[in-house]
């Protein structure tokens, strides 16, 4: 009979246990990895489509819908020029990009054809009260008017800041312009219900009780969309030229 209390037995037992558990876990990870990656990609696709007001249904899963609608995607720099490298716009980590100075950012653009014409979907990323908030904003092909917006958050307060993910909040952005009459980028402001900006900048109502998150959305839109200024303007120019 082996002595179960001896040090040697204990050390060997622990080592064997860790090896067995380690091997098992790596096998499980290897086996499940492909479907996990697919799930995460589909979640991103769902969010991109939600900005263009396209929602998956039971008979049209999100990956089919995405291939159907998103015709093209590319990366631009802050002067609006396309960057031709091998990075897939889909894989660009927006949270990482917003830390860089504007001129060095990789700015992904997703071109989506909808029943209301071609839309350009741009990712946005910022900070809420408790953690990151992010989203996608779809623009009409005049590069000025917002067609739809989608926001998500990691852990904002349920019932308060978390309301930004609801359509009741994001639908307020539909039809707002991000450039003023002089062609300057103004973004869209998020202000307390009942107030309005003095200079006539487009605004939406903040979530009541979610002031910090609402301000976060306003800052996120400004910071993430401003680098796209040249790109958005180039859209309206090419539009007038063809006319």
């Amino acid at each position, binding site marked *: 009979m082996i002595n179960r209390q001896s040090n040697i037995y204990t050390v060997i*037992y622990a080592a064997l*246990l860790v090896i067995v*558990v380690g091997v*098992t*876990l790596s096998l499980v990870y290897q086996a499940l990895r492909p*479907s996990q990656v697919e*799930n995460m990609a*589909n979640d991103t696709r769902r969010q991109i489509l939600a900005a263009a007001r396209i929602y998956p249904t039971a008979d049209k899963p999100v990956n089919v819908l995405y291939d159907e609608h998103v015709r093209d995607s590319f990366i631009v720099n802050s002067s609006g020029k396309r960057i031709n490298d091998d990075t897939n716009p889909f894989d660009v980590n927006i949270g990482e990009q917003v830390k860089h100075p504007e001129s060095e950012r990789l700015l992904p653009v997703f071109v989506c054809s909808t029943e209301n014409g071609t839309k350009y979907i741009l990712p946005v990323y910022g900070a809420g009260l408790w953690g990151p908030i992010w989203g996608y904003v779809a623009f009409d092909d005049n590069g000025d008017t917002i067609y739809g917006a989608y926001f998500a958050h990691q852990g904002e307060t349920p019932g308060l800041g978390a309301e930004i993910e609801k359509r009741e909040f994001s639908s307020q952005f539909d039809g707002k312009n991000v450039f003023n009459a002089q062609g300057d980028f103004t973004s869209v402001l998020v202000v307390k219900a009942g107030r309005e900006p003095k200079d006539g900048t487009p605004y939406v109502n903040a979530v009541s009780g979610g002031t910090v998150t609402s301000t976060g959305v306003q800052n996120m839109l400004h910071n993430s969309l401003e680098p796209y200024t040249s790109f958005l303007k180039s859209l309206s120019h090419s539009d007038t030229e063809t006319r």
Partner: protein
Amino acid sequence: MKVPQSLIPLINPFSKDNPVIVQILGICSALAVTAKLEPAVVMTISVTAVLAFANVIISAMRKTIPTAIRIIVQLVVVAALVVIVDQVLKAYAYDVSVQLSVFIGLIITNCIIMGRLEAFALNNSPWPAFLDGIGNGLGYGWILIVVAFFRELLGSGTLWGYQIIPQWLYEHGYQNNGMMILPPMALITVACIIWVHRSRNKDI
């Protein structure tokens, strides 16, 4: 009704030996995942699976485990099972795994699991240990589901994501109780269940 002796580990945790309302274990996760019905059900299944398998594995190994590192061996087994459950959820139930986020990982620290391993699996053979795991997992789960039922119904007006409170009630001024969504109301709901349970079982 007389319960056969062999099924006692399975039946007892539902009422007289309930881990949540009698032993007051696993309260933290009962607060965290009960705002909606769906995560509560997934959490129940996850905890039951982890508890049943951990009980069986530890029970099968019980004659070989060196007593000096007994707790560590139990932790390693539980942690491995929890990681597997987390990975499976990410692969097959992605939406729910996003909702449950860190709470799946925190099953490791659920007092019920280590408690059952120490108190039962180390002294019993695998089959009773398996029944004990299933019984305690479901005993924990039914409390979660009852709490989630009331929190989702009163807090969001829905059950399993479907609208239950009719629209005309809202038009007449009915409001969802936002307080129900927040953790304190889970404690109060659990307390109400304990109250009802104790008044029906005077011997506890």
